[in-house]
């Protein structure tokens, strides 16, 4: 590993030197002076020898564990780092190395990328930034000028970038897809995916495959018509769109009552995964709209709450699996679909928001198993294929009907991790039940469209959460780490035998992946609403997590 470190260190030294001095002069700072200095440095710079991120590098991400090249770390969605410098014997000695402050309020959900010593992240209100990954000092900062009338459902959040060539890609709260130059943060292209005024926004980290950048939209709370798009990374030209509610004449259209498909929701707001062996990209979708009222949309409501296998070249659907049919409890299936090979069997693992841990055959979408990993009351039976079926009496009522899991789910968008060493799947579980109560409302473009309200009800005991280690072959829980209250932190596993996660109380925690024993923690000062990652620079391993308005990094002293 050390020799490859040397190579990339040499490659990037030139750029870093230039950038650091430009930042220093910006710090001094009159705008004109800064501009002049940048020009001066620009003319001084020779054409850079920095290696760009090629499609091949993305395919071979396992060969460069010092980098974190995509949202989940690899195409399989494992969120596993092969770095092992920080391990079970020394994790207790971790110390903070630097923090980067966005100074923005709200949830800070980014998973940064790291490529050859530079960290690329996003912040609230569509901030983006590139930092010297060794020091945390900014190289460039970007913030989109957002229209005043955007109303994204669940915070002015963003979960990260994709990178390819000399560009990073950002989906925005006003539903644009933007390419930024990796070295300057300048806008290379900017396209409108859809008019945000219909209730659309983009919050996910895009996924780059070959020469395409793939995004999906948020907006399941507004009666949108969901879709997944692919854009040419060089030009921003849209190459295909897959609508997640089928139109007339398309298979699945009959699963919607009347014209309800037009406002049927099924957003795709979490990053997909990609299997190069079969050239298939896996995406997941959210709730049908209105999210908590089935009246007016009789049928299964395809492809809401589904796993979709798409051809990345064309956007054609190969197969689908629907986790929750005709959903009335906001059980979005927007959890990263994790690809795992179990001997001959190639599967997708998903701990779904509806409380079941699904194992699905990656070749054809057939269900292999579905076992509860949290408290479930919405379903008490299974169909012939083993898929959970909703209870008839689980629907929202005017007086309120208590159902588990609640609308926030047994888990949510926070990433799980699959650790190839322990062969366990680790997921943040939330034990929270809600009272679902009808609140019918007419559809109006761009306005909230829930159809029911929900709020936590914990007559018996306070809500809790837990990090659970699940065995994908048996569906059984191996161990759990109890959280005092439900959390929104994702999970990272590393080759050092460690699991990293956060909690609602603001702790960032390292645990032994085999036993669930906590080895270290750090108080970030605000609840963790992000999924951690790991990278290395100069042979030193770091772990990074966003919390509050700060991105923190940790390493051994």
């Amino acid at each position, binding site marked *: 590993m050390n020799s490859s470190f040397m190579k990339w260190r040499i490659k990037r030294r030139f750029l870093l030197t230039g950038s650091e001095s430009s930042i220093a002069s*910006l710090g001094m*700072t009159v705008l004109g002076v800064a501009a002049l200095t940048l020009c001066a440095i620009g003319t001084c710079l020779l054409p850079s020898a920095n290696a760009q991120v090629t499609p091949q590098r993305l395919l071979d991400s396992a060969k460069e564990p010092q980098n974190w090249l995509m949202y989940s770390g690899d195409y399989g969605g494992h969120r596993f780092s092969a770095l092992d410098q920080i391990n079970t014997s020394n994790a207790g000695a971790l110390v903070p190395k630097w923090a980067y402050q966005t100074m923005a*309020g*709200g*949830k800070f959900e980014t998973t940064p990328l790291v490529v050859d010593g530079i960290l690329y992240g996003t912040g609230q*209100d569509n901030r983006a930034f590139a930092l010297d990954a060794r020091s945390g000092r900014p190289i460039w*900062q*970007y*913030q*989109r*000028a957002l229209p*005043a*009338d955007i*109303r994204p*459902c669940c*915070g002015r959040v963003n979960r990260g970038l994709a990178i390819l060539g000399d560009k990073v890609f950002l989906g925005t709260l006003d539903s644009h897809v*933007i390419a930024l130059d990796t070295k300057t*943060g300048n*806008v290379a*292209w*900017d*396209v*409108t995916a*859809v*008019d945000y*005024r*219909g209730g659309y926004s983009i919050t996910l980290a895009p996924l780059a495959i070959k020469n395409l950048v793939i995004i999906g939209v948020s907006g399941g*709370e*507004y009666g*949108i018509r969901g879709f997944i798009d692919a854009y040419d990374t060089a030009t*921003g030209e849209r190459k295909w769109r897959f609508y997640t509610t089928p139109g007339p004449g398309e298979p699945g259209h009959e699963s919607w009552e009347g014209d309800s498909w*037009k406002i049927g929701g099924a957003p795709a707001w979490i990053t997909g995964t990609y299997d190069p062996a079969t050239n298939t990209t896996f995406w997941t979708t959210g709730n049908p709209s209105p999210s908590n009222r089935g009246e007016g949309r009789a049928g299964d409501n395809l492809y809401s709450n589904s796993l979709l296998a798409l051809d990345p070249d064309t956007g054609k659907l190969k197969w689908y699996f629907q986790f929750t049919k005709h959903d009335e409890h906001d059980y979005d299936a927007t959890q990263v679909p994790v690809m795992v090979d179990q001997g001959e069997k190639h599967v997708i693992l998903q701990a779904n928001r509806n409380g079941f841990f699904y194992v699905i055959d990656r070749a054809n979408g057939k269900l292999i198993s579905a076992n509860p990993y949290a408290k479930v009351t919405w379903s008490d039976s299974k169909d012939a294929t083993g898929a959970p079926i909703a209870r008839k009496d689980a629907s929202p009522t005017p007086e309120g009907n208590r159902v588990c899991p609640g609308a926030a789910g047994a888990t949510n968008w926070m990433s799980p991790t699959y650790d190839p060493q322990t062969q366990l799947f680790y997921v943040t579980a939330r034990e929270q039940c809600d009272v679902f*109560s009808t*609140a*019918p*409302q*007419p559809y109006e*473009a761009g306005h*909230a469209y*829930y159809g029911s*309200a929900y*709020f936590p009800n914990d007559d018996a*005991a*306070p*809500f809790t959460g837990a990090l659970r280690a699940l065995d994908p072959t048996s569906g059984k829980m191996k161990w759990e780490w109890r*959280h*005092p*209250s*439900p959390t929104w932190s994702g999970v990272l596993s590393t080759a050092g035998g460690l699991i990293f996660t956060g*909690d*609602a*109380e*603001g*702790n960032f*925690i390292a645990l032994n992946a085999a036993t669930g024993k*906590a080895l270290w923690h750090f108080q970030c000062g*605000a*609840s963790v*609403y992000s999924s951690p990652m790991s990278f290395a620079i100069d042979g030193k391993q770091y772990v990074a997590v966003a919390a*509050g308005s700060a991105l923190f990094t940790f390493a051994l002293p």
Partner: protein
Amino acid sequence: MNTSLSNAETRSSRRGKKVSFLILVCGALLGFLAVTKGLHAQGKNPFGGDPKAAKLGESQFRANCAFCHGLGARGGGRGPDLTRAQKRHGNSDADLFRTINEGVPGTAMPPNGATQQGVGMTEEEIWQVISYIRSVEKKADAGSVGNAAHGKELFFGTAACSTCHMIHGKGGRLGPDLSTTGSARSTEYIVESVRNPSRRLAQGISEAMKEFSQEYETVKVEAADGTKYVGVVLNEDHFTLQMMDTRENLHLFEKDKLRSFEKMRESLMPAYDQKTLSEKDLQDIVAYLLAVGAQ
């Protein structure tokens, strides 16, 4: 969905641009102002007493407000009873609009769109919610039948409420300060809190990004030196405990250094049954709390 919207793929002008730190800060400030001040509180609700607006407002209320204020706006764990005629942060339409849109600093009431629950509401939808609140609020706060002066005597005297509760700077610290309770809580809630305090524990500290507030849970610990303490949890995480014991001493513990740690979702406050506190005396205490709240 209008399909022309979804097909409207156009190259927009390059609105985003790289900015210096100064511009970034200014931009952020302006953005913040645009968000919080974008909706102007006109003086009067344009929907007035329109029952249709109230009905739509009920849906909005359920989606955005019921989490804290309860389904029927009668108050919940941390949200006041909004059926009360007197609102603590202003009664006029403009006051309600401001409270909803901008939140109440120093309380758990967040600005519109920052609740982590539901979506931000448009100006129109806020007015609908106000129509709904008007439709469920009582014309006037029912004056309690009790005797407030006698209630005060009881509070600071034989009922011993002031051992643990403070009103306007006088009393104990172990339980919640009750100076504003009379303006925020329904009579039923207050009565339940006295008769059966463990039924719904009062809520303590709310942290900005944390979904659930700390409750007034009871905790018993044995410290490393063998000293035993009983008290209320002020805050807690997986590793640490911040508590106040029954003698009002603060204790800050690392849990793994404790000999024992036991937490109960049961109030330290005794349940006042009919024998301990008659119905009439309870009504007098309620009357006192309401009178204090109205001040």
